[in-house]
């Protein structure tokens, strides 16, 4: 399946008859699972593509909120309305108010920006380091590979939340350090994926050809190897985006990273959790926002996986 980056997303959505003939390509999310379906129901194809489409829509909607949220929010992010605490949704407060009388909807809009910033920065850092070390480990092999793999294994040896907590304890409790901590946690999966793909590409004929005409190692890695391992990388980036948002929310829920009045979705849930008996809106709404955004990126990741490379389906 030769496709350029632009056609990839589109590929997930095409319902053309050509896709119907290739059983491996279609099977939807659930599908990820099927290697050799004996008969592929058209229903499955539709579901699968609908799921990918849902993912794109969710990501687009929340991405847009993150972009324009602060400009369209009806109230300030820390603006308090005394005497309006823990009110149910109304025309003035679309999702009700929280324990300080702040508008939950406005805070949700501001919070979207925090989540997306975290996602972008974490994926940027984790992918950069992951690609750098993964490609070197895969290409050089030998001791270089052993050392890089061992370092990855050591990071993997910590439960993710715990490692992030440890890093934040060392560096200090603020959002920047939380982002650094989460980035560190998600480097190893990138290293593993890039390393694995590099290993398969390394022995191909065109790499050998390039080597035989004396292409330098940096040029080899950037011009010949890297462009051929981008497919799994893009899928991993989408999934890592979802995980980064989840991790930031979890840390914020524990009071780590995000600082008090700032409206990170995780902090919003933990702040209002104690008031469930009076009003569930301020705790549930941001929680649902996290779930929908993460769902969007997961579906997008699955869709991209199908579109980019059917062989990746079971990895």
């Amino acid at each position, binding site marked *: 399946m030769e496709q350029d980056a632009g056609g990839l997303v589109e590929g997930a959505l095409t319902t053309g008859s050509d896709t119907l003939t290739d059983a491996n390509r279609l099977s939807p999310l659930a599908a990820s*699972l099927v290697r050799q379906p004996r008969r592929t129901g058209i229903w499955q194809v539709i579901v699968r593509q609908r799921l990918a489409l849902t993912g794109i829509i969710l990501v687009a909607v929340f991405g847009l909120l993150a972009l324009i949220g602060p400009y369209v929010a009806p109230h300030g992010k820390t603006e308090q309305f005394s005497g309006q605490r823990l009110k149910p949704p109304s025309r003035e407060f679309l999702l009700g108010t929280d324990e300080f009388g702040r508008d939950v909807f406005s805070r949700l809009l501001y919070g979207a920006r925090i989540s997306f910033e975290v996602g972008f920065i974490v994926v940027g850092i984790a992918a950069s380091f992951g690609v750098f070390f993964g490609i070197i480990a895969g290409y050089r092999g030998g001791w270089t590979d052993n050392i890089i793999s061992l370092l990855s294994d050591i990071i993997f040896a910590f439960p993710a939340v715990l490692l992030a907590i440890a890093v934040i304890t060392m560096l200090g409790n603020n959002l920047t350090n939380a982002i650094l901590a989460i980035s560190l946690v998600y480097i190893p999966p990138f290293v593993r994926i890039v390393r694995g793909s590099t290993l398969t590409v390394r022995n191909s004929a065109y790499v050998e050809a390039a080597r035989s005409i004396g292409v330098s190692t940096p040029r080899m890695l950037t011009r010949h190897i890297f462009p051929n391992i981008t497919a799994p990388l893009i899928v991993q980036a989408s999934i890592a985006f979802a995980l980064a948002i989840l991790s930031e929310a979890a840390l914020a829920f524990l009071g780590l990273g995000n600082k008090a009045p700032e409206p990170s979705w995780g902090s919003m849930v933990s702040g209002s959790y104690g008031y469930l008996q009076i009003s569930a809106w301020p705790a549930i709404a941001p929680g649902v926002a996290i779930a929908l955004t993460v769902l969007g990126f997961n579906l997008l990741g699955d869709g991209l996986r199908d579109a980019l490379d059917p062989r990746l389906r079971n990895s």
Partner: protein
Amino acid sequence: MGAFILRRLLLLIPVLLGVSIVVFTMIHAIPGDPTQILVGTDQLISDEQREVIREQYGLDQPLPVQYGKWIGRVLQGDLGTSIRTRRALTYELRLRLPVTIELTLLAALLGTIPAVAVGVLAAVRRNSRLDYFATVTTLVGISVPNFLLATLLVLLFSVKLKWLPPIGYVSIRQDAVQNLKVMIMPAVSLALPLAAILMRYTRSSVLEVLSSDHVRVARAKGLSQRTVLGRHVLRNASIPIITIAGIQVATLLGGTVIIERIFSLPGIGSYIVDGINNRDYAVVTSVTLVMSTIFVLVSLLVDILYAVMDPRLRKGT
């Protein structure tokens, strides 16, 4: 198989060494004067006292020497003392570890058995309602943060229906029924992501085996569906399922930090958060060390189990 297990055990050494170095670095990288951290950041101490502590803990020696001494103490079961309670951390952890272990085991139980059952059924009855239910559960399970699920459960079962208490830990020895009532919501919240991922892998793994030649042969011989599934499909599908289950059960440990916090369970997960809030850094580092060691050991056990189960590895390649 012996060779595989031996190799795996050897790999354990550098990984555990690495983990201990990370934790040791963490102890020394914590901002502030280490003597101050040892006595507690809210205590005033004189320079003489500082000197005494420095000598007592060997803080005046080079770092590799300090590491050697520290790891020696850790191996003897001395993790230091909590600044807040002035009690040995080994003692503090022993009080709390059973809660975390019970929670993890309960979640592992709830997250594996139903997930595998549904996964198998979903694969056998592909495209049925159950299959779509499994697909949707998987999606929800990997996307819903565990603290949202916990919040929803509390809202339904504690606030609305008033069936289960939202907090108030009772140990299993005091009252087993009450203990279960307190533990069930935390365990379910913790188990969902595990169940989601496991269901997905079970389904895919069973589907793969179902479409293999030996299953077709078994069917052609006229064996009953039950025999085909039990003897030919599940046995082959179980190996990857066990691997994934093991990895996921190990990751449950990390999730306990949040879940114990929400439900005020006195395990080591909420202990580490208390440690951060009280600036009791010895608590943070010791819990990190203990949890990651358990994590590494569980992963090792899974790998060994894998080797025992897989006949291809049993031959000793």
